[in-house]
């Protein structure tokens, strides 16, 4: 997604005041550039007594979490930012899911209350610490006033204010009402700690969400229980744009436990007392479909369309010098086509949503990365006012971008309008995979020219594929250019004297496309890091040395050099083993990976070891960084090895984990994480490792076999 940081120091509006029922509350209001209608109220909005940070008279610190936890550790990291400046222990912080509100809970980078783009820490790094600092200052002032001492003789520690000379001590809870009546200090005068003063940030603090996840207590969206709750199974038209033609409602209703059959435009739902009855009812309903206009779409046709489009000039994303001329005069020319498949998200928690719809209210229980978009869309769909629509957000059992979409909620609302009482719609794994919004298929055409010494004199890169932004956030899709489609491609770490990058938008009516963990970087880091490897080999240079010669950024060189050192770059390996390297700047973080791969005689691949180095600025929780390296890498490696969604007769051909394979315990490599110490502001991290791994592995395959993999997933038949 596009990154348009606003200067938080100057543009954050911070308020403090009294909470309902007593206590101190700190609020934010963020200006949201792409939502001008909201920016104005943000500057003048009334104090919201429940928002963001609350400290109550019982000494409980509540952080109302604007971002949703889906495994990335954001609950803990954001609590750490607050606790560091507020001077409380992490064990004193309680977390609550925020209700939808773009002004109070907006992410300034994403212009709304959206969890995505690895942007949460980058967006909240300053304001959350400011909130903690302001609250701390107010509490110290309140204590000093009560004691009649100079506030500079008091300090805050572990949820209390202490008068150093007399050792008098007051818990925050005893001070909150007095603090709430004090004027808020100007943010200009609020000094945040320097990194060397941090006591919590930078430590491997224990996660706050995990104890309830090892004994089954955590309530994910799919676990919602309500009085009178019914459960629905759903069949969505297997071809996009199709409609149910016949439904045997009587047969479905004859199944024990089935209450109701609901047929809507694009789907049939069977509502029952429990999901098995609903599933049996759905089977008995024997739904037949009118497939509509997309019934003849297949993958070959989609790829052909992309290939043809890639022959035509696109919208220019970057132009330096005269790449065509330089190519024509080059001593050596390379041309290549790279292709990346459609991918499903396939999170472990299948799509689900619970809705209670009445004539004047709609309650939605769901795990969502986009609570405000969801609320807006439900309002549009139902005609109800926004304040009648309550979004109860939940922990998500894996997001990976899938829950940036609210299609599942809209379907559930359409069904719930026909149901009296609350209904939980649960998709089967097959529905989840076959009715995803997919990572686009990309067809990339590249050329490069080398001079006699092997140095690149020209680089061209044309991306052909769907635009996610054109659908998801149209203002970002300007003049035909999708910044996500050319992310990294338009701004590689390498300097080329002549360079041309363009984009051709191609859409298929049979599928919708969506963000997938690692977004544009996962596509283009593979392409750029593979093609630069091709250049190195064409120049008969070591791929590491070749990269270094083209890079000036010291942070990029830092991670690259460290990865090479830790991986033992250049040390001999057995036959049909190889090492491959990749380096990237994405989401504000630098990353390099070296993969050590063995290619068996039957072409199958064993990835033995992955060394990952990162410079992501100041680290909030180093253990979370390591966890994201491990998990993000396996997410990308799974896709590189196995991931492909294909269409036949308008239908998605895959349906469950046997034909949309995840990596399993017996296949995983050892993954090592090494961090470069940095004093820069934090970069985003949840998605970066997903992008880095595929080219490291395919470059290693080339080193092992001499075969260049240009299409994902890796076709092992080429490696026999």
């Amino acid at each position: 997604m596009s990154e348009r940081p606003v200067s938080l120091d100057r543009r954050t509006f911070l308020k403090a005041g009294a909470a309902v029922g007593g206590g101190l509350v700190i609020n934010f209001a963020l200006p949201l550039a792409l939502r001008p209608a909201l920016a104005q109220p943000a500057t003048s909005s009334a104090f919201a007594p429940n928002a963001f940070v609350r400290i109550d008279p019982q000494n409980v610190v509540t952080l109302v979490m604007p971002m949703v936890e889906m495994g990335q550790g954001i609950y803990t990291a954001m609590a750490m930012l607050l606790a560091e400046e507020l001077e409380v222990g992490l064990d004193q912080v309680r977390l609550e899911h925020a209700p939808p509100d773009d002004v109070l809970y907006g992410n300034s980078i994403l212009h709304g209350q959206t969890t995505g783009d690895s942007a949460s820490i980058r967006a909240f790094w300053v304001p959350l610490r400011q909130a903690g600092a302001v609250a701390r200052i107010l509490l110290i002032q309140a204590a000093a006033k009560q004691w009649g001492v100079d506030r500079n003789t008091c300090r805050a520690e572990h949820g209390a204010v202490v008068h150093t000379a007399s050792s008098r001590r007051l818990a925050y809870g005893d001070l909150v009402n007095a603090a709430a009546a004090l004027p808020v200090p100007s943010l200009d005068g609020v000094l945040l700690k320097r990194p060397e003063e941090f006591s919590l940030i930078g430590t491997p603090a224990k996660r706050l969400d995990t104890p309830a996840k090892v004994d089954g207590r955590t309530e994910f969206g799919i676990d919602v229980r309500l009085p009178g709750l019914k459960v629905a199974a759903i069949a969505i038209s297997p071809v996009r744009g199709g409609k149910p033609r016949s439904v045997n409602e009587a047969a479905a209703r004859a199944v024990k436990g089935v209450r109701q059959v609901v047929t809507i435009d694009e789907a049939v739902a069977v509502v029952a007392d429990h999901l098995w009855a609903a599933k049996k009812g759905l089977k008995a309903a024997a739904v037949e479909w009118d497939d509509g206009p997309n019934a003849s779409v297949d993958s070959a046709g989609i790829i052909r369309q992309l290939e043809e489009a890639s022959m035509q000039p696109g919208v220019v994303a970057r132009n330096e010098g005269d790449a065509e001329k330089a190519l024509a005069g080059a001593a050596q020319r390379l041309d290549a086509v790279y292709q990346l498949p459609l991918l499903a998200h396939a999170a472990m928690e299948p799509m689900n949503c619970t809705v209670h719809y009445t004539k004047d209210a709609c309650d939605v229980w769901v795990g969502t990365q986009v609570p405000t978009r969801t609320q807006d869309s439900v309002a549009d769909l139902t005609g109800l006012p926004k304040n009648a629509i309550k979004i109860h957000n939940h922990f998500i059992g894996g997001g990976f971008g899938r829950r940036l979409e609210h299609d599942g909620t809209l379907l559930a609302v359409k069904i719930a309008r026909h149901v009296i009482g609350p209904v939980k719609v649960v998709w089967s794994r097959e529905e989840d995979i076959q009715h995803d919004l997919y990572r686009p298929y990309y067809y990339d055409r590249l050329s490069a020219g080398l001079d006699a010494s092997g140095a690149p004199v020209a680089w061209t890169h044309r991306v052909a594929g769907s635009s996610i932004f054109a659908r998801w956030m149209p203002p970002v899709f300007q003049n035909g250019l999708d910044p996500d489609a050319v992310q990294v491609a338009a701004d590689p770490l390498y300097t080329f004297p002549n360079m041309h990058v363009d984009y051709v938008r191609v859409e298929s009516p049979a599928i919708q496309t969506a963000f997938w963990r690692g977004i544009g970087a996962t596509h283009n880091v593979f392409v750029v890091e593979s093609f630069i490897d091709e250049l190195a080999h064409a120049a008969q240079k070591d791929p590491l040395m070749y990269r270094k010669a083209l890079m000036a950024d010291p942070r990029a060189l830092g991670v690259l050099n460290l990865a090479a050192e830790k991986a033992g770059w250049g040390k001999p390996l057995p036959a049909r083993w190889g090492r491959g390297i990749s380096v990237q700047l994405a989401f504000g973080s630098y990353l390099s990976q070296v993969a050590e791969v063995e290619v068996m005689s039957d072409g199958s691949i064993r990835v033995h070891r992955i060394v990952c180095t990162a410079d992501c600025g100041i680290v909030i929780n180093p253990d979370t960084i390591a966890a994201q390296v491990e998990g993000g890498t396996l997410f990308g490696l799974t896709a590189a090895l196995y991931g492909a969604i294909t269409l036949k007769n308008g239908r998605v051909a895959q349906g469950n984990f046997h034909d949309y394979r995840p990596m399993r315990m017996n296949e995983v490599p050892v993954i090592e994480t090494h961090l470069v110490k940095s004093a820069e502001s934090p970069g985003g991290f949840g998605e970066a490792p997903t992008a880095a791994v595929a080219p490291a592995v395919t470059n290693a395959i080339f080193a092992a076999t001499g075969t260049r993999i240009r299409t994902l997933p890796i076709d092992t038949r080429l490696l026999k």
Partner: protein
Amino acid sequence: MAFTIKVNGTAHKADVDADTPLLWVLRDVLGMTGTKFGCGVALCGACTVHIDGVPARSCVTRIDAVGDKPITTIEAIGQTPTGKALQKAWLELEVVQCGYCQSGQIMSAAALLAGTPKPSDADIDAAMTGNVCRCGTYQRIRAAIHRATA
């Protein structure tokens, strides 16, 4: 049909068809949501429970096949020394990310340790390969199983 099943030491009645998988009885009839639905066809292990001490995929285990055999779920595995040790190791090594698959992972690991108190990496591969984690926590799961037995 009315069935009586024994879950975590307590008898529960469920009036469902005989072919109803145990998973939906636990989740939708008894309201015990710690056991997760992931694939519905025994491909991912998220629904793993113990029946008479043996790991079973509850999404394909018919209620009429359970009989009076005792069922243990994630909600009660911490009451066994092995389950408790695993949960402790899981937290010490911060295995969990989204957490959705971890009920099944811990149940499979507990079953492994019941039969093989000191498992090798190969034993862990054999016992845990049926449990999918899309967050990619496998490396830490392996380490946590070893730690729980240390």
